[in-house]
């Protein structure tokens, strides 16, 4: 018989965190099920042609966006990998990380400022087309925005894959006199091909759960996705039965995609860090150099365009007046407080799950993982299956019987965003904690260091930076989120993205541009801080 030591407090705290997450998600499901059971015929009747069209459009736009992101990304990544050293390369890669940090609504506004009916390119496009430029609402707008997010992300992921190719292979290739074409076929393509399903899957996942882009750039019933459909059913048509049907479909859809992704071994959570390019032994001929340069420049222009437009349009706004407006100040304060609390909660949940997982893994030794350990491990990643809108919709339906749904807006924004940011926070915290535990576990056991003294004396010093990284990242995510607040927002509780959306809705484009600049800069600063904090490693013995 194996004796049991007294229960590890880390496991208890982990169970509490899991319970809180389960309550949040379970409550949403309860809301959906109660509503569905209450009005079953209504939910069933929602399966109509409109619904079919929405599902079809959701899949269609996601497939197109994925295709348009992943395929060009293959070639841009290859071009970047063929030239491991040139002036500005690091800067380009940094720029390619920026879309990851930008709130979707800021990007949408930047894209409208550039390619919209009254955008900077409208005159040019009208001259080329010979008629008035209609702007890029609808499918084209959604695609441009999705590619704006997913192309740079895919490039970075492909580049990461290419950098795993051994330097010896390149040495061998150049010794054998392999040209660009055979090198691609024999060395680069096999690596890219194995990375392709994961990258494409990630892009597809991000596109079928994209809400803000479709809401702001999609036009009318012809370009609506499930997520926007849920929002409209709850906020405009007030058709809870339809909302239930749409939500369940959305869950089924994301679940299938995530399952397929994990089968493919993909990493559902995008990463922003990129190792330094290794030395290459390459001779690249002139034609290829100019081709690669053209590819990189094109991709760069595509990515930089909306960002530049955001900045220019934002600076054109009457920033002084905006800053003086009471609503703007109030929304900024609300956003800051909610995002701060959300990030705090997210980091605490992540820490609780991380330490519990480690404690469970240590205590089981060679035995099979228990269900609890699975829950603290991969279970946490599965919250991504349930998009914020879905959780929001569930609680919205549950609480509308009880009282004022809008009154709990702050709680919903804080908790849902905290849970949504958790998989990302976990990725910052877990490796650091596991590595520290690897070094310290036996020593702590031997010296009897546990509980608070352990957290304070032993874990905190090695977790400080990763926790700060996770916090900054979670705060940026929460700050830019429009999903939950779109459902629960009202005149009394407005965040910056919500205010931005309402200014866009009332055609106060200048105001919106000014707010977008503010929001974009803050999020960018947070993500840069997160990256910087994550990179600076504590020296170990």
């Amino acid at each position, binding site marked *: *018989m*194996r*004796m049991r*030591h*007294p229960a590890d407090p880390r496991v208890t705290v982990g169970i509490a965190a899991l319970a809180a997450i389960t309550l949040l998600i379970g409550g949403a499901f309860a809301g959906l099920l109660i509503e569905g059971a209450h009005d079953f015929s209504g939910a069933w009747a929602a399966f109509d042609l409109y619904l079919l069209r929405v599902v079809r459009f959701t899949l269609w736009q996601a497939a197109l966006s994925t295709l348009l992101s992943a395929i060009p990304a293959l070639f841009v990544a290859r071009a970047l990998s063929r030239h491991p050293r040139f002036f500005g390369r690091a800067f380009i890669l940094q720029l390619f990380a920026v879309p990851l940090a930008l709130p979707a609504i800021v990007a949408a506004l930047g894209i409208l400022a550039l390619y919209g009916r009254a955008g900077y390119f409208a005159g040019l496009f009208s001259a080329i087309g010979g008629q008035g430029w209609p702007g890029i609402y609808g499918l084209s707008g959604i695609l441009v925005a999705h590619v704006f997010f997913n192309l740079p992300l895919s490039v970075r992921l492909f580049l990461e894959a290419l950098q795993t190719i051994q330097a010896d292979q390149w040495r061998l290739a150049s010794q054998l006199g392999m040209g660009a074409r055979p090198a691609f076929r024999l060395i680069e393509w096999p690596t890219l091909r194995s990375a392709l399903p994961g990258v494409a899957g990630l892009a597809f996942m991000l596109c079928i759960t994209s809400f803000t882009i479709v809401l702001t750039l999609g036009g009318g019933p012809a370009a609506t996705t499930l997520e926007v459909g849920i929002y409209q059913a709850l906020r405009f048509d007030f058709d809870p039965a339809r909302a239930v049907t749409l939500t369940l479909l959305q869950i089924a859809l994301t679940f299938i995609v995530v399952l397929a992704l994990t089968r493919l071994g993909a990493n559902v959570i995008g990463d922003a860090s990129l190792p330094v390019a290794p030395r290459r032994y390459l001779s690249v001929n002139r034609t290829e150099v100019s081709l690669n340069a053209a590819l990189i420049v094109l991709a760069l222009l595509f990515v930089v365009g909306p960002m530049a437009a955001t900045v220019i349009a934002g600076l054109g706004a009457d920033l002084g007046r905006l800053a003086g407006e009471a609503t703007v100040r109030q929304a900024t304060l609300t956003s800051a407080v909610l995002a701060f609390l959300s990030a705090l909660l997210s980091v605490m949940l992540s820490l609780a799950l991380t330490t519990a997982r480690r404690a469970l893994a240590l205590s089981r*030794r*060679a035995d099979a993982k228990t269900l609890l350990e699975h829950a603290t491990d991969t279970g946490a990643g599965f919250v991504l299956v349930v998009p914020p809108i879905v959780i929001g919709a569930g609680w919205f339906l549950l609480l509308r019987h009880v009282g004022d749904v809008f009154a709990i807006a702050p709680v919903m924004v804080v908790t849902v965003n905290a849970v949504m940011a958790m998989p990302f926070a976990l990725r910052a915290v877990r490796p650091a904690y596991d590595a520290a535990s690897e*070094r*310290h576990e*036996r*020593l702590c*056991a*031997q*010296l*009897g*260091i*546990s509980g*608070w*003294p352990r957290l304070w*004396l*032993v874990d905190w*010093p*090695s977790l400080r930076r990763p926790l700060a990284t996770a916090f900054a990242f979670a705060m940026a995510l929460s700050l830019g989120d429009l999903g939950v607040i779109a459902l629960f927002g009202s005149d009394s509780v407005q965040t910056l993205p919500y205010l931005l959306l309402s200014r866009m809705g009332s055609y106060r484009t200048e105001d919106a541009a000014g707010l977008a600049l503010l929001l974009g800069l803050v999020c960018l600063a947070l993500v840069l801080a997160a990256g910087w904090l994550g990179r600076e490693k*504590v*020296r*170990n*013995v």
Partner: protein
Amino acid sequence: MSDGTKDRKGVPVRLDKVSFSYGGAPLTFDVAFAAAEITAVMGPSGSGKSTLLNLVAGFETPQSGGVLIGGADVAAAPPAMRPVSMVFQENNLFAHLSVEQNVGLGRSPSLRLTETDRADIAGALARTGLAGKEKRLPRELSGGERQRVALARVLVRDRPVLLLDEPFASLGPALRDDMLDLVAGLHAERGMTVLFVTHQPEDARRIGQNVVFLDKGAVAAKGSADDFFAGAGPDVFRRYVGTSTQTAGSRDIARKRT
């Protein structure tokens, strides 16, 4: 405090029909270690040397059998509650804490230290040759100094059993000899029971009074170090050491020549 500890002698350690498994072939240990003596635990890689120490320290729990320290069965006790200190090959120190703090943790796991504690810590640091380095961080120390800090903590912890899991394996020969002499010196003063895992026959020869030789997860031979190294050791031991008793001899000759 230090007066009381000087009289405190090591206690016997016994593994009573202990069986343990990582999931593969089970390891079985049935062996006693003499009180207040240094026993070298030797054997090929994977023979279970570290596991044996982990069972005594409490990092592993036997599936059956008893771990007796000073006559009491501690098999169910968590590591911190056992009368044992252990020094590992690496990671003996918290990288972000100073030398003084690392040693102080041996007295109080939450670093709440009294004046007496502080005096004892200063004494232990002086004894291990670390006076003046109290405020340094582990990364500002050499590999040998880091292990000295671990030994200083052993002194302030003052437990009757000391487990050494190849603590000097990554040090150069001269430094290793210094550290072995330090261990022998501390043993002479405190008289604790020492279990010393090592790969180096010279180490065992230098400070070991007894040898326990493990093979394939069980004790294959046991005896006094003098017998083992005089060539009277069992076959398994001679095979493991190979011709090294001879090479050790020829190296002595070589050393004399120079």
